[in-house]
């Protein structure tokens, strides 16, 4: 399971970011999903990408991370001792440290919702359907790309996200 982001459709409304915050009740300053403006016409909505080779997972001395069979990378809060090694190792800045609780938290792809047959809240809230979830083992589209400008290096971690790039705009003049 992974995210599919259509860069052409994203208008930067931040509905996904707000929906995530509402659903997960994350404290102020902690946003599991963030929308970044890369250029005047390109926005990127990034959360944890539930990588195939998660670095957060490898470096955690407390073995607090697990990967479910559907690919979702979870963090077990009770095991986290707040060492922040995962925070520094993740190229996507997905794990976020809460100075009040001294714990790290991150997007869990709304697995309780998914287990109940619902879509992740960010996907459901997306006003333009730019964000969706797909089965990456089966999803095949010739237009998809594995990275976009402004997206961190995917080489080692192999994030579970694919992108539809922006299309080149054409201008038509009526005479």
């Amino acid at each position, binding site marked *: 399971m992974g995210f599919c982001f259509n860069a052409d459709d994203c208008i930067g409304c931040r509905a996904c970011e707000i929906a995530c915050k509402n659903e997960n009740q994350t404290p102020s300053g902690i946003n599991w999903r963030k929308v970044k403006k890369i250029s005047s016409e390109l926005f990127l909505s990034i959360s944890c990408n539930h990588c195939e080779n998660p670095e957060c997972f490898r470096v955690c001395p407390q*073995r607090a991370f*697990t990967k479910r069979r559907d690919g979702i990378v979870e963090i077990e809060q009770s095991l986290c001792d707040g060492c922040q090694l995962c925070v520094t190792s993740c190229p996507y800045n997905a794990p976020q440290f809460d100075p009040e609780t001294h714990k790290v938290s991150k997007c869990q792809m709304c697995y309780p919702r998914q287990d109940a047959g619902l879509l992740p809240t960010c996907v459901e809230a997306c006003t333009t359907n730019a964000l969706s979830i797909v089965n990456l083992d089966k999803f095949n589209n010739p237009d998809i790309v594995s990275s976009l400008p402004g997206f961190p290096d995917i*080489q080692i971690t192999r994030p579970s996200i694919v992108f539809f790039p922006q299309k080149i705009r054409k201008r038509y003049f009526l005479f």
Partner: protein
Amino acid sequence: MEQSACIPEIATELTKASHQNLTYFIQKVSDLSGKDVILTNNHNQLITSALKDPNHIIGSIMAIQQLEQHKDPSFSLYELITDSYVYRGWGTVVAYDNKILGYLYLVDSEVAKLEVQNQTLMSLASLLIASKLQMKLEIRQEKLKFKEPFLFDLLYGNLKQKDDILEHAKVWNWDFSLQQSVLVFTLKDFNHYATDKKLLNKLLYIVERTVVERRWEPIAMKRGNQVSLILTTKKEEQKSLKDCSRKIAEIVLKEMHRQEPERFFSCGIGKTYNDPRDLFRSFQEAKVALEIGELLDIQVPYFEELGLERILYKHDTQDLKEYYETILGKMINYDSIHNTDFAETLEAYANNQFDMITTAQALFLHKNTLRYRLKKIEDILEYKLDDINNRLNVTAAFKIKKMRKI
């Protein structure tokens, strides 16, 4: 008038022996028949044998030929060619519910006739063996059903209790109490919709076969475009786990290259851990080693041996670009303006451990020409190349370039 049913002694003996393992049972058949007994599976591979001559040891069966059929069609005379001797004897099919599970042979030097007593013995023995083999098959199928989920949980750190892992592993006779490490093999440009899935099955088969040939337990799992193999230390093994894993990786890659020369297979090896709860770490390390190995053209990369690359691969790309620019930028500019290849010379010098003679040989240059070139490079870069810190900087800069960060 009352008639008492009498169970023949052979039947009683065989039934009693059937409660023991197959080797014991075959020995019993041999004792009762007074002949050598060989049991094979449905692919004619040896399961067990009971031979009177202690010098006769069967390693494998090379060929089996049917010579003639008995009056009773369930018996035939066979010739068995093994790796050490050629045997002749009567054989019968071991079948359960019309499914052939194996073959039972009574072999001897004089095999012209199959006595009635041995005919009965073979019939009864094959029935009992069939039920034992069927039971084994069912257990194996049950085990397989749980094997992949267990390996997934093990490799993705979902099992947090060491005792649970050790206990669970006993189902497949795996021992995780000693050292272990993970090897990951991958097929490049994997396509879910092409015949690549079959290719991956072949990779899994070759990995398992290579491990079995070396008398190790094949603890392997296929997922996506990867085959992961867990190697555990064996007490009797002289070589270190590191050497064994490297050897296995080399054999598998060589075999895959031989069979599929047009496709690219690579491998990565993680660190060795004592605790099975850390296997997920070794698994992730193997995958990192695999990725870096592909970038740096290392055939069998070992995570532990990657050194500087381990730090560089996860460093910020912009930072690395700036570093590269600071260390080699002047020379790259000079090369592009004056159409020279000083960068190539310096890279060869760094690759040859900053040794003048080997670099000159590698570049087919005279030593004095190389000396002149290096002097020129020093002038362009404005630092000395005999300084150990500068050498480290240059090496790191070229590693960054090689890792396609630039």
